[in-house]
């Protein structure tokens, strides 16, 4: 099977955040989730699309997501929705990533910015 270059950052805690964020407002199935991530990140986040499923299954196992099989246009798909536990998890993750991003931004613009640059 041919392979694609992946962005390893996708595997370091970011997927949970992105998936929970996307599913916050409506239920989606795996393919839809991946296409939404690709289009909304302007294809900066690249990964083998199949790797989204282990993350979905793990979130479901932690009761952050609920899955149900649904027939749409004659095709059966597993749709995922966020549970109240998932919403709380999203809030925590968003806060953590917000703080982290702020800290990194501060470092990049701070007195050491030239050295870093």
């Amino acid at each position, binding site marked *: *099977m041919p392979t*694609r270059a992946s962005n390893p950052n996708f595997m370091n805690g970011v997927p949970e955040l992105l998936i929970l964020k996307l599913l916050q407002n409506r239920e989606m199935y795996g393919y839809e989730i991946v296409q939404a991530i690709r289009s909304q990140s302007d294809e900066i986040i690249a990964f083998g699309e199949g790797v989204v499923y282990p993350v979905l299954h793990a979130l479901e196992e932690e009761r952050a997501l609920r899955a149900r099989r649904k027939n749409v246009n004659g095709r059966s798909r*597993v749709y995922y929705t966020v549970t109240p536990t998932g919403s709380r998890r999203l809030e925590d993750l968003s806060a953590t990533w917000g703080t982290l991003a702020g800290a990194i931004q501060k470092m990049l613009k701070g007195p050491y910015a030239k050295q870093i640059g």
Partner: protein
Amino acid sequence: MPNKLDELRERLLRAGVAPRHVRRYLRELREHLADLTAEERTAGRTGADAESAALARLGGIDELAEAMIRQRQLRSWACRAPWLTFGAGSLAALGAAYFIACLLLWCGWRLFMPAAETPFGYGLPATHALAKIYFVADKSWYYGAPIVVGLGIAIIAIRQRLSSVWPMIGLGLVAYVAATARIFANRESLQSKFTVSMSFLSLPSSRAVASGELLYALAIFSVSILPYLVWRFRNAYSQSQ
């Protein structure tokens, strides 16, 4: 792709991912691949090109396997705690099966032989055909229970592609406990309660009893392990081809 998915399935099972998660993962990957192929065709690619592009987008076997194996919560109990599955779990299953056998014996005794001091050793009148069937069924359940539990262990081991150590330990435990099990049913007088009890792991009273227990344990072990051995041989044979 089917061959690649077979390869992925084997890799995940051998890494300890629970079979139900593996099954669902492969099904969702197939559905995703179908969507990607359709998208590539809509974009103008044809036949093999569309499929090849879709496969590339889906991810390589290493990447797909790695992503699943990394999620430790998706691993099976047999992988996470084999001592629990094949040790405590096997004995609990055997205990439950024996409890059912004792309960059936107790009910049959009360129902068909209320005047007997024990349900063992008494010939039932010929009119009690139903009673005879009942007790034969109960006896079969009692003697079949360790084999059923043993076969369960073998099936778990096959489904999860386990090495032989833990299944052997589980089967050995079940065979030993079953071979040393004794069932008692008696009451002191007709006014006393119907009492059914069991004992386990008691030391044999004579050499003949010890040999009998050993033979029984070996029989349970051999019958139970048969499907697992057949699977191992078939696997080894197909790999050598």
